[in-house]
């Protein structure tokens, strides 16, 4: 292998790795706050990319129906509690967030989808459509069993992944999409050609990670999420609602997912089922961080990206196998290094 090829592979690996790192951060965030291993994280990436592609093509994205349906479902889930409590404010709140807001977003997208709109508007519409799915899914799938064992939550995640990937096919079809790049520029440094889009990926990932850091370290809401992750009962006793924390973490995770999808769609062809493997590789990174540490998770995900890039050069048919097999020794090493008593909380 020549130096140029190695350099190219590194660049390629880092680009994918940056996306995996974003996935890993979202997974760590969701797991720490809710104990949910969020297998469908990758679906947000796919949904984001596919929705953007629909808007780009001037078509009405299928996610619009999903948003409305989930909103109605979430309201129905709220209903028994609302009837019992008879509190007007709570009812109004539920109706606003589950019915009015989705309807408003849907109407907006319905009107604007077929118009020729600028790229930033399309991205904004994509976010408005797909990001609310995060908290809505939390409400519908996880909130009713928020205190179930991790294994049950994991199985729910897998089931949700099945449902969402099936829906993805129904809503978007089997065609792969690739969106227009943010910039056509490319930069040459010696033999290395770096595309503008790759730079966008790097820059946006770094900015997003910095923002997340500031959010968790400086704001009271960020601290409240961390507190929930550290001690759920303690958080409730401090007046921090676990429902709020759950929805907030799913909102963040969905944002990160959609954002990643928008970033990667110009580089890689995205199919309705692309999300799963991307999410799984993010998961590998997250696991390397022990599902606790954000920096370690990001580093682990970058490693996965690099590993995959080099593996596909040597044996492209086996790249998944190589990535997942090489993970075992890493896991073993981590597992032997971290002595934690599983039963002591």
């Amino acid at each position, binding site marked *: 292998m020549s130096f140029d090829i190695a350099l190219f592979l590194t660049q390629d690996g880092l680009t994918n790795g940056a996306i995996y790192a974003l996935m890993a951060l979202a997974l760590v965030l969701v797991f720490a706050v809710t104990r949910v291993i969020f297998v469908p994280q990758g679906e947000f990436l796919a949904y984001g990319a596919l929705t953007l592609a629909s808007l780009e093509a001037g078509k009405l994205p299928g996610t619009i129906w999903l948003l409305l349906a989930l909103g109605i479902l979430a309201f129905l889930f709220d209903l028994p509690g609302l009837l019992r409590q008879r509190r007007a404010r709570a009812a109004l709140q539920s109706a606003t967030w589950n019915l009015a807001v989705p309807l408003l977003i849907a109407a907006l997208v319905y009107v604007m989808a077929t118009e020729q709109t600028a790229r930033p508007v399309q991205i904004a519409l994509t976010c408005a459509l797909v990001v609310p799915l995060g908290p809505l899914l939390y409400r519908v799938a996880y909130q*009713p*069993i928020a205190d179930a064992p991790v294994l049950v939550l994991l199985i729910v995640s897998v089931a949700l992944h*099945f449902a969402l990937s*099936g829906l993805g096919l129904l809503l978007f079809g089997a065609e792969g999409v690739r969106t227009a790049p943010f910039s056509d520029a490319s930069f040459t440094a010696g033999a290395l050609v770096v595309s503008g889009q790759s730079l966008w990926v790097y820059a946006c990932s770094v900015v997003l990670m910095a923002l997340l850091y500031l959010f968790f370290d400086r704001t009271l809401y960020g601290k409240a999420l961390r507190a929930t992750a550290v001690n759920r009962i303690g958080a409730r006793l401090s007046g921090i609602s676990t429902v709020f924390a759950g929805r907030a973490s799913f909102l963040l995770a969905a944002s990160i997912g959609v954002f990643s999808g928008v970033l990667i769609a110009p580089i890689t062809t995205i199919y309705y089922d692309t999300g799963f493997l991307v999410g799984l590789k993010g998961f590998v990174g997250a696991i390397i961080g022990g599902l606790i540490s954000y920096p370690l998770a990001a580093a682990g995900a970058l490693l996965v990206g690099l590993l995959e890039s080099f593996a596909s050069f040597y044996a492209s048919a086996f790249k998944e196998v190589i990535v997942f097999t090489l*993970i*075992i020794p890493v*896991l*073993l090493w981590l597992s032997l290094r971290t002595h934690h008593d*599983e*039963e002591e909380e």
Partner: protein
Amino acid sequence: MRRGLLVLLAGLFAFAPALLSDYWTTLLDYIGLYALVVLGIVLLTGIAGQVSFGQAAFVGLGAYATAWLTTAHDASPWIGLLLGLLVTAVFALVLGLITTRLSGHFLPLGTIAWGLALFYLFGNLEFLGGFTGMSGIPPLQVLGHELRSAQSFFYPIWLCVLAAVLSIQWLLDSRSGRAIRALRSTASMAQSFGVDTATLKVKVFVYAALLAALSGWLYAHFQRFVNPTPFGLHVGIEYLFMAVVGGAGYVWGALLGAALITVLKQLLQSVLPQLVGSSGQFEIVVFGVLLIAVLHGAREGIWGWIDARITPLRPHRRMIAAAAAPAARARPAPDSVLLEVRAARKTFGGLIAVNDVSFEQRAGEILGLIGPNGAGKSTTFNLITGMLPLSGGEVRFRGQSLAGLPPARIARLGIARTFQHVKLVPGMSVLENVALGGHLRGGAGFVRGMLHLERAEERLLLAEAARQIERVGLGEHLHTPAGSLALGMQRIVEVARALAADPTLLLLDEPAAGLRYQEKQALARLLEKLRGEGLSILLVEHDMDFVMGLVDRVVVLDFGVKLAEGLPRTVRDDPVVIEAYLGA
């Protein structure tokens, strides 16, 4: 009554192939094949707590081994079975040695990793037919009959399921089974009573893999064709689904889960296209949504849901026959030095939890260890019992250094303990929990337990456990699930469990916490009696009345340092102790 009903149902079931159509018989055959795998998952994941996504790969090993041997070498399917089990055992042993060491969330990912790897291996090996697979596998022959139909295959499949159910039920009711049930939530407790948890996990892992391989072997001769698809990761996930939906903690949950998911998928595939046209992905959406709905309603799985509603609070009664006590240990000479702690030190990162603490305990003495929370008392216990490695210093028991010995070995020397945070297996009866304490006084292993060949020894262990429970005054609670007792009583169960180990040295971590005045008096009398019988007791306790009236000597710890040591009266008047601990 129940037994009669069960036999009746089983009898009816045996006639199923004669009564049902081909379609339903075939479905039942598949349910049986899946149930075999899921039974392994129940044991491995639901009971022993080791989440595995990779069982489908073991099914593949069993299927491919026989497929290759019978087609390429014209061997008998029975040789194929042997080879399949052998290959699977070797693979499972190696993978198990690696994977079961993985802790926490590393474990599921590890199983995903080798599940994927084996799948690609099947698809890429030429002699296994690649992704197209192998056909022309001969049918199974039993007593000269070729089993070609779904009807005839029904019997071998369901006999295997029956055998698997029985073996697991028997195993769980044995000495090894108690240890397995302790693996999930209280593994460190099991270790401190001599259970080699690492080896036990591997054994469970291998057994679950062998059940999967057996299913694979049956599958290969039933289908008479294999390709990699049914052994991939998605199928592995589906097996786990079956276990969780049926009830991962229940043996019958495996059968129920396998049946429900199989039938549900069939129904969805046949009904949905009629309802919504031919959009092929709709069934997976409905499948996912239904699963979520089931888990919302029954997070312990459907069998768990039934169990909680139908079965009353009925303890699992075990017969206790009169039996002689198992052999007891020789007691050391009274007043000889039993335990020496020399400059013991434990650091966690920069924090010094135990700072060069030294004391010794003599045989037949009750020594009290007192101090506020965080003083290092429990850490000292963990250093003595080998739960934590020493950072410095030395611990000697009857003259032998304990440095580097694992908890199970230290237990063997005659040290038994209780825990500050009670570590009982909540779903097991008091009797079974206490019998776990006598683990090292029996020797029957995994296989003997599975075949019910250890009944004589089991009687001995249970009788001894019952004796110890009577001794601590909980005789009326023998068959109560330990988790439903009040916390104070659970602590006493822990004392009985420690006594069942026939220890020389008993370490008690806050045994009186949560007891009322009268119960404390009774406990004090029991401990005095034990001392009279030559037992030595090291006691961590906060209740000064209780400690001072009972112990022979006291050691006071604060911030990991020994403040004072001596007779209760002198320690109580020690100005250092008053200043730092008791207050004026």
